[in-house]
């Protein structure tokens, strides 16, 4: 599936795949997207992480030329979203948040419909559809009307429909929403295989999804990008404190006080001690506990999560 990639103008080889400039969208007095500035490189998988209503889908809708920005603009492979919407539509593939399929058409027909609308010839559509259905584990259900498929199957078909015409840019809006863990993992594996070959803008409110898949993550809240970076950059740059968790017996008041004097936060709960500070000395803590006669059953440094990052940035938990 490499011979039908629609080429962007040659002079645009070095431009970003997606670039936005103060992209803003209002719905009445509600600011859904508030001056977003983005630059996504070609071949990058960029994830928008944020709660429902944060502005993720609105941003994608503007980039897909379905919504006009109230102000600001954006370019997709150098094409302006306001002036060249049909050029953009030729090079993008979209899997919307809702699993929107033509329910009385079978899987092959749904794929063929999108393929034909992108002017792909019938033979290629047939071949690519078979390949897609095989990749998505839907070969056995190729001739079934999609209303008879499970939610997971529909979601996989929806993603296949975004890819059937071999687009340069793929928008995946909450691709695993509502899927069971097994189906979610299967979709992740497939998306991971596309990394590097396609530019992917993915929205999610699953932290582990962004963590697992994304090259870079933009944390979006109330229409603004609150933080941007790789998963580890976000965790290390934003979460300044480190946390050590110790499961221990015979914890004495004396050693607890000793640790509290030395480190910023020490909490005890059901035999579990959590110690947090900007600088943690793992060896020092273990030695102090041993010296005090405490039996340490296990101890580890807790890695910060994106949830911690989100909490730190927005002051609220990511609603899932």
């Amino acid at each position, binding site marked *: 599936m490499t011979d039908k990639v629609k080429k962007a103008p040659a002079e645009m080889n070095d431009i970003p795949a997606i670039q936005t400039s103060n992209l803003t969208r209002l719905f009445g007095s509600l600011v859904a997207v508030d001056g977003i500035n983005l630059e996504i490189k070609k071949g990058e998988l960029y994830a928008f992480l944020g709660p429902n209503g944060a502005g993720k889908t609105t941003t994608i809708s503007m980039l*897909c*030329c*379905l*919504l*006009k920005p109230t102000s600001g603009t954006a370019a997709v492979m150098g094409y302006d979203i306001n002036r060249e*919407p*049909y050029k953009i*539509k*030729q090079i*993008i*593939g*979209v899997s*919307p948040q*809702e699993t*929107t*399929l*033509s*329910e*009385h*058409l079978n899987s092959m*027909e749904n794929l*063929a*419909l*999108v393929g*034909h*609308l*992108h*002017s792909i010839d019938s033979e290629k559509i047939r071949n690519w559809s078979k390949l897609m259905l095989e990749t998505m584990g839907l070969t056995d259900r190729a001739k079934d*009307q999609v209303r008879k498929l499970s939610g997971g199957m529909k979601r996989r078909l929806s993603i296949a*429909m975004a890819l059937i015409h071999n687009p340069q840019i793929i*928008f995946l809006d909450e691709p695993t929403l509502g899927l069971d863990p097994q189906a979610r993992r299967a979709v992740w594996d497939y998306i991971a295989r596309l990394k590097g070959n396609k530019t992917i803008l993915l929205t999610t409110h699953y932290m582990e999804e962004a963590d697992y898949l994304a090259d870079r993550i933009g944390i979006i809240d109330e229409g603004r990008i609150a933080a941007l970076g790789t998963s580890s950059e976000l965790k290390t740059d934003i979460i300044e404190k480190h946390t050590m968790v110790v499961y221990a017996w015979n914890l004495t008041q004396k050693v607890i006080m000793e640790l509290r004097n030395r480190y910023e936060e020490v909490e005890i709960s059901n035999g579990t001690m959590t110690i947090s500070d900007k600088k943690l000395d793992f060896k020092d803590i273990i030695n102090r506990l041993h010296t005090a006669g405490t039996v340490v059953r296990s101890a580890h440094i807790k890695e910060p999560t994106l949830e911690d990052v989100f909490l730190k940035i927005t002051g609220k938990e990511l609603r899932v």
Partner: protein
Amino acid sequence: MRFWQLFTRSLKETYRDPLALGFLLAFPLIFMLVFGAAFGSDTTPSYDIGIIDNDHTEVSQGFIDQAISQISIFEVTSFDDTDSAREELKLGEISAYVVIPGGFSTQVSQIMQGMEGDIVLNITYDESEPMISEQIISSVNAATRQFAQIEIPVTINTDPINIGVDITQMDFIATGIIVFGLLIMIPTSGRIMLRDKESRFLYRMLTTPAKPWEFIAGYSLSMVLLATIQIFFFILLGWLFGMDIIGSLWLAFALFLLTAICSIGIGMVVASLSKSENQGESLSWLFSMPLAILSGVWFSTEFMPSYMRTFAGIFPFSHAVEASRAVITRGVGMEAISGDFLFLVSWAAVVFIIGTILFSRTMRS
């Protein structure tokens, strides 16, 4: 040919959904069956007709005995003068009276001998019964021409007519029912688009390079095909219930198809403006039911105030009723209905252009 792909997809969505297909096809056909059963039986209406013979010849008497009295729906009573006939008409004892003027036999004889002539009959009727009067006039017209063995029209009706056929109640009603059946394609034709809007499938389709006109054509063509099937069944059922198509079947078919295309076009406009299936259907019914009444699908528009008739004339359906009724019951050709025909063609073109503009505006809000 993106519109072709969208068309085949809409078609599959329709015929693979038995409930939707059943509604689309069965609803108007049931309507036709009910009306057909009610008005298409052998129970023909009977009208009391008065006749005044001012010619007093054997020809005029023969006309009364062999033509007027033979019309199956007439009970004929002779009057000596118009005053007494008018009195009976006022009392509701008769529905109309026909005056045979002096010189009638001369005109008939001239025409029978191949010379020029003008048969004049004066019919006075109760204006409050426009549908009945229309039927009486047509029946008298047909009988007169049959009697005189002429192809030229009599003065009471200047349209050429097949003289061998009796005009039945069904002939009048069927055209109205067919136009009504096609008029209710307004709410049904936008259904797939609105369903796609609600399910957000349209959102996905709008991310493809398909143009607004291709969407409108795709959604409409499947409905046009469905309308063609509907019209075939409408005419077949009408015929089974006794509707005689005196004029060109194909001209009648073309008129009905244009009517359907206008309805589908309006449906596309409504669907483009609406956000949900419920909203679209409510708007459509609100629009189509008053239009059905105004257009004379059930009742003749003759009794309506002139401003209402003018208003109804803005829309295609009153033209469709008049033109199709003229073709079916009076056998007129294209030359007699070309104005209505062109009006329907223009309306179809304009409404689809408006639908496409509105759709393109809603494509990107």
